[in-house]
């Protein structure tokens, strides 16, 4: 079965800084990876996804993520954050074996200070 680990529960940066939110997964086969964002009091919204091809994928609002099979990672990055990026970010994994079980990490709360 697949598992997801987000090692940083909280990350604080200043507006204009770059940020990387870490995601590591465990699964033996092909895999689908996604990132979602949750603003306070809201449901989750999709940011980006990876299944195959170019390991660097672009998402909405300037976010990108890089897949590494050797590190079992799918870290999310943004070059210059804005205060409105403050939210909780979740990494999600679905095994590519035909099943549709989607497992989420524990989330990283990003706080962007003005």
């Amino acid at each position: 079965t697949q598992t997801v680990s987000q090692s940083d529960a909280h990350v604080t940066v200043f507006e204009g800084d770059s940020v990387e939110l870490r995601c590591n997964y465990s699964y033996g086969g092909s895999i689908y990876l996604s990132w979602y964002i949750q603003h306070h009091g809201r449901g989750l919204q999709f940011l980006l996804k990876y299944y195959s091809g170019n390991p660097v994928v672009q998402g909405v609002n300037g976010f990108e993520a890089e897949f590494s099979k050797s590190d079992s990672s799918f870290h999310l990055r943004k070059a210059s954050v804005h205060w409105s990026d403050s939210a909780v970010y979740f990494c999600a994994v679905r095994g590519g074996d035909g099943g549709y079980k989607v497992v989420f990490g524990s989330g990283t709360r990003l706080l962007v200070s003005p």
Partner: protein
Amino acid sequence: EAAVTQSPRNKVTVTGGNVTLSCRQTNSHNYMYWYRQDTGHGLRLIHYSYGAGNLQIGDVPDGYKATRTTQEDFFLLLELASPSQTSLYFCASTTGGVNTLYFGAGTRLSVL
């Protein structure tokens, strides 16, 4: 954009009570999911389904039943609610493949 509607938005019940959470999507999505969100645990999968009449067990199924009555409707049932089930519950749906999940706004359940 795909719409997923959860009801009620807030619910308070007592220990031992019977609760049904409802989720409806009108986007012809095949797959539907129930998650609970708790501080420090993120989203944990309770049950999921890939069509009417189908039910798959998630990672934290104890104390929960679910039923997918139609392609649109997926219900989560707590027949003997306990305080440990106090949580924020999310429903999500997707067409399948590499497609993304669309989430409802959540149901906040308090079990006193």
